[in-house]
Structure formats: structure tokens, C-alpha cells
């Protein structure tokens, strides 16, 4: 196992810059998830670590050795592809042993390794089958097995669960997590699915437009997003955003929405009076309240989505759609009005211009915007 250090890595295709100087330190044994919308450069970064894409400038080191000019096979990494990339003409056992056979590993060692990994992944009964005779989940497992057999320094996953149905994806998510705990291997996992990122990562690397937006543990990213992009990308249902101006008097502050509605917020030393700001509130941080019980604002009910465990209420506030998540089952009529209150301690303020988060005065400096 090994650490991976990425220093100022850039990638350009001709005049098009895909990655603008990525810096990332991945600890030995860490499970890192690169997450972002398609086209953000996360797969390119992974393929650069694997050696499938050349590095335009900068360095990538695995286990302390710069691997920029090494062939993929000499980097001692294993990769699981989205399409699994199983060799269709080989049996499951041959697929898993291919790398070892190429390295001229002794036959007994190979079969012992295959048996061991097949046992871990529950593939014993399938060893003599060919990939086309397997289900999607089984193929996924074989692809994992092929990676594990080699005992590489690091595992690279390129959206490995995207081709599975929702239930299987959930199941494989926990399996990969357990496997990681068992093997303790450094892993870099690429996904566009923020739920996978949240549930699997030791640390999340949120990427957008070829730039690392934020690096942090899932809860750090969730609770203190560095900017509007991270705030909107992580979390489902997504965060609500309302624009307005910031106004502080002494230790109390408020923002005035575009239609004049006033919402109390935590004072921040980083904003000045009259500054254009964006309020970010997660659906679970907005409450439906009785009239007059707490400072509240009036919104119109658009839609109610009962989900059994919870209810998602869609309302309109200051002309903007706002989603409210509640474990209660509110008795609301569509097109009626409702009083809602923002949980001031949990809402975020962002500078509308730079889109960066404006941390409140009360917050210790712990988040690390990139």
C-alpha cells in the first residue's frame, strides 16, 4: 500500500485545458472519492494516476516515486472500469489471473491467490464461466477480483457502479467499503453520484471545471461547503438558494431577499452591509411552524411529495422554489400559504459575486477551501 501525491498536475488537449493544476495528497490506506458533474476532469485525473493519460505538467507520485514517465503496468496499481473491461474470451479465473500469469507467477501461487479472492467475493462457483454468462453484479465482482488478486499499491475505481441497478448499487457500495476496511488499500474512487461519495469516502474531493473545489471528510463537506457549487452538488434533496443583501447591526444580522422578505442570519466578519449574498439552506434546515411562534416568513405551497419516512414540501419564497424536508406529515393544502422558519445556525451565506462561503464569526477555521 502507498500514498499518492499529486502536485500541480495539469492536463491539456491542445489548447483546451482540462485540469488546471491539481494538488492532492492521498494518505496510505485512505479511501478518496473524486466527485463532480460529468466533464469536471475527475476521470481524467484518475486516468493520469493510472498512466492511461499523459500528464501535461506537474507530478504524480505513488509511494514516494514520481510515476509520470512510467507505463501503467509499472505503476503497480489496479483499476476497475465502468464497463468492467473483462476479457470476454477468458473465464473468470483466467480474467483474474491474467496479470499474475503475465508476471510469470508460479502456478500454485496463482491458484492460491484466485481461490482466496474468489472466497472473499463469493465467486467460487463462477470461476469457469465466461463474462457473458454472468449478471451485471457478478461481472462487477470479477472486475474487483481481478484488481484485488494483484495486491497492488493502490486501487483506482472509475464509476464502477454506474451500470448497476439501484438496489445492487447500494449493496455493492457497502461491499466495497467492507472490502476496503479488510484490505486497507489506498483507493481512489471516481463517481458523479454524491450519495456514493458521501457514504463511501474517507475524504471527498469535489471537482468542477478542472479545479478541486474542496477536499474534506463527507460531513465537513456537507456541513461547511466551501462554495455554492459544492453546496449545491452535495446533498439530496439539494440545498435551496435565495439571493438578497446582507445587513448587520452589532452582533445580529439579517438578509433581505429580493422581494423584501427579511431572514435572520448569523453575523459574518467577511461581509459588509449591503453586500449581495446568497443564502443556502438545506431542506432539513427549514421548518414549517405555527404562525407567530418563532420569527417566520410566509411561503406558498406548490407541491407535497410524501416519501413514507419523510415528506418533501415544495414552496415558493420570494419568487424562488424552496424545498422543505420534514419527518412530520404536515396537513397542508396546495396553493395555500405556510409559515416557514430558517434554522439560523445551519444556514450558509455565500458571496453572490465570488460564490465563496462566508463563514460566521462563531465558526472555528477548519474547513479548507482549495
Amino acid at each position, binding site marked *: 500500500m502507498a500514498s499518492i501525491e499529486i502536485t500541480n498536475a495539469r492536463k491539456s488537449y491542445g489548447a483546451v485545458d482540462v485540469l488546471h493544476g491539481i494538488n492532492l495528497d492521498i494518505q496510505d490506506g485512505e479511501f478518496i472519492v473524486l466527485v463532480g458533474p460529468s466533464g469536471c476532469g475527475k476521470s481524467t485525473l484518475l486516468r493520469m494516476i493510472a498512466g492511461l493519460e499523459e500528464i501535461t505538467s506537474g507530478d504524480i507520485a505513488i509511494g514516494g516515486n514520481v510515476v509520470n514517465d512510467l*507505463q501503467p503496468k509499472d505503476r503497480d496499481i489496479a483499476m476497475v472500469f465502468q464497463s468492467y473491461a473483462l476479457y470476454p*474470451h477468458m473465464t473468470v479465473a483466467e480474467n483474474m489471473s491474467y496479470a499474475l500469469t*503475465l508476471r510469470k507467477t508460479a502456478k500454485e501461487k496463482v491458484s492460491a491467490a484466485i481461490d482466496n479472492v474468489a472466497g472473499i467475493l463469493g465467486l467460487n462457483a463462477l470461476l469457469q464461466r*465466461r463474462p457473458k454468462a454472468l449478471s451485471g453484479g457478478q461481472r462487477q465482482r470479477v472486475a474487483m477480483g481481478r484488481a484485488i488478486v494483484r495486491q497492488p499499491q493502490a486501487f483506482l475505481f472509475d464509476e464502477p457502479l454506474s451500470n448497476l441497478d439501484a438496489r445492487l448499487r447500494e449493496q455493492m457500495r457497502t461491499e466495497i467499503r467492507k472490502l476496503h476496511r479488510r484490505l486497507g488499500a489506498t483507493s481512489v474512487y471516481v463517481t458523479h453520484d454524491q450519495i456514493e461519495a458521501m457514504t463511501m469516502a474517507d475524504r471527498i474531493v469535489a471537482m468542477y471545471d478542472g479545479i478541486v473545489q474542496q477536499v474534506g471528510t463527507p460531513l465537513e463537506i456537507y456541513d461547511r461547503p466551501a462554495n455554492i457549487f459544492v453546496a449545491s452538488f452535495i446533498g439530496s434533496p439539494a440545498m435551496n438558494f435565495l439571493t438578497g443583501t446582507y445587513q448587520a447591526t452589532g452582533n445580529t444580522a439579517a438578509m433581505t431577499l429580493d422581494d423584501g422578505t427579511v431572514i435572520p442570519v448569523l453575523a459574518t466578519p467577511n461581509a459588509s452591509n449591503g453586500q449581495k449574498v446568497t443564502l443556502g439552506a438545506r431542506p432539513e434546515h427549514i421548518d414549517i411552524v405555527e404562525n407567530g411562534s418563532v420569527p417566520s416568513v410566509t411561503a406558498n405551497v406548490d407541491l407535497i411529495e410524501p416519501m413514507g419516512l419523510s415528506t418533501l414540501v415544495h414552496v415558493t419564497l420570494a419568487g424562488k422554489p424552496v424545498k422543505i424536508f420534514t419527518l412530520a406529515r404536515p396537513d397542508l393544502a396546495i396553493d395555500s400559504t405556510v409559515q416557514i422558519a430558517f434554522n439560523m445556525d445551519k444556514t450558509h451565506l455565500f458571496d453572490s459575486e465570488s460564490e465563496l462561503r462566508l463563514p460566521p464569526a462563531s465558526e472555528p477555521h477548519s474547513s479548507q477551501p482549495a
Partner: protein
Amino acid sequence: MDGDKPVTNMTDVGKRPAARRGVFSRRLSGILEPYYYVSPAVVLIIAVMLMPLILGLSYAFRDIRILNPFSGGFVGLAHFQALMHDSAFLGALINTAWWTFGSLAFQFTLGLVLALLLNRQFAGRRLVQALVFLPWAVPTFLSGLNWAWMFNPVVGPLPHWLTSLGIMDTPFNILSDPDLAMWGPIIANIWFGIPFFAITLLAALQSIPGELYEAASIDGATTRQQFVSITIPFLAPTIAITLMLRTIWIANFADLIVVMTKGGPADSTQIVASYIFTQAFRRLDFGYASAIAAVLLVLLLAYALGVIALRRAMTHADS
């Protein structure tokens, strides 16, 4: 659309009069109905495929010589007995094998190399791909004439080049040397047939997912190992089917030989297909020509069945 209406059987509605005539005739017309629909196609197939085949085969057992008004009688197996002792025919059989497999081996190997080259990214690739296809588009008679001239020391450059390279002592026409003449049409055929293999194999190459090569390169496979364990298995079905089709096609393909050497000198380039042509259109002995054609048909059928059996055995072993 209208849920209240009971579902009606349109066929029965259309057959009201028949229905009145009774159960039997109604059932009979029901059985015959599908055949009415396919009959135009069946009639066409019988007219343009089966009739000529049967007619041609029947000629093999009859004495049909165009210039002899008294010919046309049934001769039984006489043509086939004559064939057994026809040294020109036996020579043509050997030449056919030489011609077919000599052309095929080079067409396939060079076509595969060309396909692998065209599968790489380079500037002007689309143009080159289009140009590569050109020999295939040239009418075979034209390419035959062209190659015949190229081998001719009076008008063509090839003998002079070969002499300069030291391969020939003096410039001469290999088409007039019984030992070398077959190479003339074979070279022309190679030039003509490479595009077919290049294009079909290129299509097969492009259907191989790139991630397999990436996975293999991570697994540590060299380019050669990737070729053996990914490219070849993926190309195998295409290779098998194209080789079989082209074998049959080349064995029957006499155009280049007829144009370049007319089977000569001294029958040294006579293949079965050109021998049929010679018998039918020079000696005007259609009966004997048909008998040879029948033998060629049987040989190629046997070959095709053999290849199909082999392929089936291989795919069974596969699954």
C-alpha cells in the same frame, strides 16, 4: 380503440363466401393463405436460381456442343469419366489450389497489416482509408490489363525494376514463363483483394472496446501480448467467415487469369474456373464445361461444410 366491440377476425371477415362453402374449404384456404403471400418471391427464386442450377447440372449429363447440331443426347457419366483422365483438368485442380491459397495468404496477411495500420490515429487517416479501397473499385478487366502491361518489358516498368534490383538477369515477361506465370495473376489478385480484408478487419478492429486494451496494459500485457489475447480472439469470427467466403470467391474468380494469360503458357495458369470458360466459350463444349462446373461445385460445397463444421466445433468449445 372501441372497447365495446368484440374482437373480429379480419381473415374470416374477408373470407365470407368461403365460409359459406363449408368447413373444409375454409380450412384449406386458411392453410394455403401464407403461401400466396410468399409465392412471388418463391417464383422469382426458382426462376433465377434453381432453374439455371438444375439446367446447368443437367448439361453435365448431356452431350451439348454448340457447333454440332446432332448433339444434345443423354451421355450419362461419360463426361465425368473423361474428366478423371483429363490431365489438363487435374493440372487445373492443382493450379486452382495454388492460385487460391497463394492469393488468399497474401491478401489476408497484408490486409490485416493494413487494417492494423489504419486503426491508428494519424493525420489524413480518412483520406488514406478511402484511397485504400480504390483497387477494389477498379473493374477487374482493367486491373488485369494494367498488370499484364506492367509485367511486359516492352511497355511496363516491373521487369526493369526487378533487373535493377538483381532479382532478374535480364528483363523478361514472367507471364510467358510457365514456371513463373502464375505469380502474375496472383500478384494482381493480391493487389485487388487486400482492400476487402483491410476494410472488413478494420471494421472488426474498431468494434473492440478500448478499455480492454487499457485494462490489459495495467495488467502488464505488452503490445504483442495484447494482440494475442485481445485482438486475435475478437477478430477470429470475422477472419473465419471472410477467409471462407474469399476462398470460394477466389477459386471461382477467373477474370484476371483470362485477361492476363488466358490460362497459358501451356496451361500453366489454367485454373478450374478458367478451364470451364475455355471449354464452354472456346471449344463450345457446354456439356463438358458443365461437368467440370459440377465437380467444382461439389468441391467448394465440401470445403464450405468443412469450415462451417470447424467453426461450430470451435464455438461449442467456446460456450
